[in-house]
């Protein structure tokens, strides 16, 4: 039952009670309700049309937004100040990442992160054993920063400092032979790293009539 329906039923019950009991005070109240000038605004009849605004929620403060707004776009938007090189990242990788991703990023047991395909071919629909590494499959370098900062390592997600993340990204890009060993990765250089897989990605091409 809607709330409006419930009120209507409650009102009907109350009137029934008055009629049965003949309670003078209640009758007086009912009389008063009928005849008293409308002190309150008249009850809305309700509508099925939604208003432009319900007035629900409250404005977000700039500080609240800044505290959560950690995403990084493919154009580098959202990258924080800071920097790192592969030399900075190597020891952090050994301490925090190698246990799951292998000593050189190729051994697993979790996702293989390092490795290129000869000629930067894209054999993933021919050979399911080809690992989808950062160097062979990831279309944007910025994704590595965004993902490591938000979700890694799984035993302490979100615990890495921005400079540590820059260092790790530099180390992983270096291991994938995408940047030289001494390259500095920061908010301006990261979006410019050329990712070999990028050219292979296309929008969903299933149309109507649809193909698999």
């Amino acid at each position: 039952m809607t709330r409006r329906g419930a009120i209507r039923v409650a009102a009907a019950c109350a009137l029934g009670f008055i009629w049965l009991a003949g309670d003078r005070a209640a009758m007086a109240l009912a009389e008063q309700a009928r005849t008293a000038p409308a002190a309150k605004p008249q009850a809305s009849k309700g509508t099925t049309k939604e208003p432009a605004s319900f007035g629900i929620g409250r404005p977000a403060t700039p500080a609240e937004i800044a505290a959560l707004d950690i995403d990084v776009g493919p154009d580098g938007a959202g990258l924080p100040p800071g920097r790192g090189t592969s030399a900075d990242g190597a020891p952090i990788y050994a301490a925090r990442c190698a246990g799951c991703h292998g000593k050189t990023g190729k051994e697993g047991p979790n996702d293989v992160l390092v490795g290129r395909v000869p000629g930067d071919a894209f054999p993933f629909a021919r050979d399911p054993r080809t690992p989808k590494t950062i160097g062979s499959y990831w279309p944007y370098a910025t994704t590595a920063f965004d993902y490591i900062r938000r979700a890694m390592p799984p035993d302490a997600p979100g615990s890495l400092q921005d400079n540590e993340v820059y260092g790790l990204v530099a180390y992983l890009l270096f291991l994938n032979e995408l940047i030289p060993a001494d390259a500095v990765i920061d908010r301006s250089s990261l979006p410019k790293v050329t990712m070999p897989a990028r050219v292979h990605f296309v929008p969903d091409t299933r149309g109507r009539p649809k193909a698999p």
Partner: protein
Amino acid sequence: MKVSRRALLAGAAGVVALGKTGAAQVPQAPSDPSKVRGKPSRALGQRAPSEKPQRQPRGATSSGTPHQDLCGTITPADLHFERHHGGVPEIDPKTYSLLIHGMVERPMVFTLADLKRFPAVSRVHFLECSGNFGGRTAGPEITPQQLAGLTSTSEWTGVALATVFREVGVRPQAKWFLAEGQDAALLTRSIPVAKAHDDALIAYGQNGEAIRPEQGYPARLFLPGWEGNASVKWIRRIELSDRPFMTREETSKYTDPMADGTARLFSFLMDARSLITYPAYPVTLGRGWVEINGIAWTGSGKIQRVDISTDGGATWAQAKLQQPVLSKAHTRFRHLWNWTGGEAVIMSRAVDETGYVQPTRTELMAARGVSSVGYHYNPITGWLVRPDGTVVFRQESWT
């Protein structure tokens, strides 16, 4: 030996009851229940002691719905499949909030109570993980749960995302939004704003009660008909933008390598698929009439037709669809078959209201090649009924 499904279940229960530990799992029912006063009323209902449907965890990050134990279209909430990337977070509904910012007129924060004050929408929809095909490398002894357990159907209740977007004043140049969860993965996906104006919800209800933790408590994004990963659970933040964000989940994962050397990005739509849930492994059939049944679904709208073959795809007949057929929801199909004892391969093929026909393995492989993960694999599959009545998955080569 021919054993009915019921006898098989009863036999299994007997083994459990007489196990070495002596701890009977199923309480003995009185021989004549009408001669014993029954149990009193209680605060929380429970399944009958003999009924023990269970999800089947695959590692720590997913578990599938036991389709072989279900008979309708709604999945009991505690059997809804789960898939998560950082575990199931515990979120206090009193401190929960959703931030919406970016290309909006008014960046705003909504509490759970705020979300519930908006006009509510309830709809029955399936959800499916796009990696829901367990038949590529499996042996013949797999259940419907192992083959396609990562799809379930619920009644979802929430506020239309379009309503919330109107409240914050989404700017016309905003074409995408980032949805971010409050789990340990802070899972993020970029979603076209057009989906908000179509049928997207911020859902807080599932089958008439609060969403379960595994499904996104206290609130989640719900995108009907789209791959489950995009319906970000435990949603804490939405950021409007004029371009997608290219997150890890939409680039290195949940993209589809194609036979032509490309890879599809943002392949949200779940195409039509069907699954025979009975008879299927580990059932043993007896000769005579069998009602083949199962579920069919499509992200494109309503299931228009399900065809059944009992001869390995040589001939097809139209199954009966349980009414009403709902858009983007599991649809139960049923088909009578008189099994006379010979070997048979039974198959189902879904056709949706757009005319899309569930593809064969050959058609899928021609388009997709051999994928290592197999997102969006929706092939027609078969169950092999052997002359002795045992039923197993009909294996096919995917290489």
